[in-house]
């Protein structure tokens, strides 16, 4: 193949070729890094919360009547909800995973204010918590009904038992996380709590937190003025139960309001709405950039074909077949694209290092680069094939018919 003459001819008209090569490099850089971000977001969105999300919903009950007895009502509500057919279990809880709002505390393995605490999300639940979440208990045991006490809004004391997620145990006891069961951890600097069990996965309420898998369960029901109930249903029963539970609770005591009812699926949807629109936007940007680059290649190649009509006719007269002419433009474009992707690979790496530094993104999977090279070659090939075909159809008689 005539690489030499094609390259030499190109260096005499380099501006267009260089611009297209730069555009290819730029597109490739943006493409790879955008896909990297999209993948990273998709991975984050795909992390399990640990919950039986499809069958969970929650609502809030707030008493306002003067004679409203909160403690009695909570006991009554939970009993009624748990007795409903189609309900698997229910629990009073302070915060909902993925919802964005909750409590956090620090736990340490040694008592004292100077011990480094490990941040953890706190969920107050009773002995029905684990079953209501649908999380898997991997070690130790669940709370007993006798473990569960009441917590007032002003309380600062902590009960003496807790259950941790494996991720939290791993953070605190990296050498042997399973050995956490039976160990004492300290909350509020000095208050001891015994770890009585470990659960596999339970996300904290904040999906953007790097410690999102670090959670603890605390055996308390709350007298906070408003009570939130998390309810798990049989598969398929959630949508009928939601209005049913709402009505039942509202009817059982007119001295309170029921509000903020929402399924966990909706909570997840809201939680990642921003991420989803960002990834969509990135996809659009990549799509537009790729289309613009392809159009640039079409434009440059069309211009080259028009400018070289007589030359093409002359080559045909001198014995070039249609295939030879076609090949000329394909090879020329391949060389431009290749310059672009080589530059693009270098720019991609530099840009990714910057992203890793500034946005603390994980570094790029190196296989993205050869994959993008193949994509850019394919885009170049498709874009140039129209003009190249047109070039191959220039009649040889053009050689003698054009002045």
């Amino acid at each position, binding site marked *: 193949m005539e690489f030499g*003459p094609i390259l*030499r001819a190109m260096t005499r008209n380099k501006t267009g070729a260089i611009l297209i090569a730069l555009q290819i490099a730029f597109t490739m850089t943006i493409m790879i890094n955008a896909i990297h971000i999209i993948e990273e977001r998709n991975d984050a969105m795909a992390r399990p919360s640990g919950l039986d999300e499809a069958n969970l919903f929650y609502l809030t009950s707030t008493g306002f009547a003067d004679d409203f007895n909160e403690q009695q009502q909570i006991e009554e509500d939970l009993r009624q909800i748990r007795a409903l057919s189609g309900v698997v279990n229910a629990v009073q809880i302070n915060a909902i995973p993925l919802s964005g709002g909750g409590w956090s505390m620090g736990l340490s393995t040694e008592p004292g204010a100077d011990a480094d605490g490990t941040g953890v999300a706190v969920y107050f639940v009773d002995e029905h918590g684990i079953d209501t979440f649908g999380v898997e208990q991997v070690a130790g045991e669940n709370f007993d009904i006798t473990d569960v006490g009441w917590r007032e809004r002003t309380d600062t004391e902590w009960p003496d038992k807790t259950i941790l997620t494996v991720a939290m145990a791993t953070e605190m006891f990296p050498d042997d996380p399973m050995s956490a069961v039976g160990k004492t951890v300290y909350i509020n600097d000095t208050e001891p709590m015994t770890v009585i069990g470990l659960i596999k996965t339970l996300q904290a309420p904040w999906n953007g937190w790097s410690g999102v898998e670090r959670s603890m369960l605390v055996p308390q029901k709350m007298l906070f003025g408003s009570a939130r109930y998390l309810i798990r249903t049989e598969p398929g029963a959630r949508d009928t139960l939601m209005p049913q539970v709402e009505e039942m609770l509202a009817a059982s005591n007119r001295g309170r309001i029921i509000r903020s009812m929402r399924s966990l699926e909706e909570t997840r949807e809201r939680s990642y709405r921003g991420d989803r629109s960002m990834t969509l936007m990135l996809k659009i940007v990549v799509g537009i950039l790729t289309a613009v680059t392809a159009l640039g290649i079409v434009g440059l190649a069309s211009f080259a074909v028009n400018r070289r009509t007589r030359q093409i006719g002359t080559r045909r007269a001198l014995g070039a*077949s249609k295939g030879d002419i076609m090949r000329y433009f394909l090879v020329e474009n391949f060389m431009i694209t290749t310059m672009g992707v080589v530059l693009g690979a270098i720019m991609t790496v530099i840009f990714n290092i910057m992203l890793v530094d500034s946005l603390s993104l994980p570094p790029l999977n190196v296989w993205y680069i050869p994959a993008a090279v193949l994509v850019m070659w394919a885009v170049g090939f498709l874009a140039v094939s129209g003009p190249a075909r047109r070039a191959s159809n220039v*009649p040889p008689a053009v*050689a*003698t*018919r054009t002045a």
Partner: protein
Amino acid sequence: MLSMQQIAKVYRTDTVETHALRELTLTVDEGDFVAVTGPSGSGKTTFLNIAGLLETFSSGTYMLDGRDVSNLNDSARSKLRNEKIGFIFQSFNLIPDLNIFDNVDVPLRYRGFKSAERKARIEKYLDVVGLSGRMKHLPSQLSGGQQQRVAIARALAGEPRFLLADEPTGNLDSAMARSVMGLLKEINEEGTTIVMVTHDPTLANEAKTNIHLKDGVVSETASISQLGNGKQNAA
């Protein structure tokens, strides 16, 4: 060697039909040097394009080197052009982005020659046209006469049986025209058959045979050598 029987060429557009050639019948013998003259629009370029397989024709038979080439497909025609026919154009048609060496190389690459063979031929034929010192020059750095010599070297490098030239001196001043004509005559002496379209009667007279076209048919043929005196115009 080249024999056309009742060749007709009609150009059709939406509104008009142009009969560029009407039942043209002629023969060119091996080793001949034919000058084709005729008024503008008489079909000279059309004839040359058909002879050189650049265009197809509407009816008739064309035998090239003893072979009927009327119904060849595009790639077979390309191959024949490359191997048997050399072209010289009025406006040289050198490729402006390639230097002289690469220009002469163009048909040789399509021929599939190895690099050593190509290099030897390029050097040989640039030497024949007296331009071996200009191999790295671009066409724009040469005079018109020199450019046409490069084009001749390019046409010769494939060592074709035929050289077809459409007004090869049309863009040159008379001195340059003379030297190009001299070169063509030398080439013809070496055995290459030449068909040349020209407007210049003096140059036509230097050819061995003159064909005069009018309205797409041959109006007169004269073999100048048969007349005994190359200076006499047969027309």
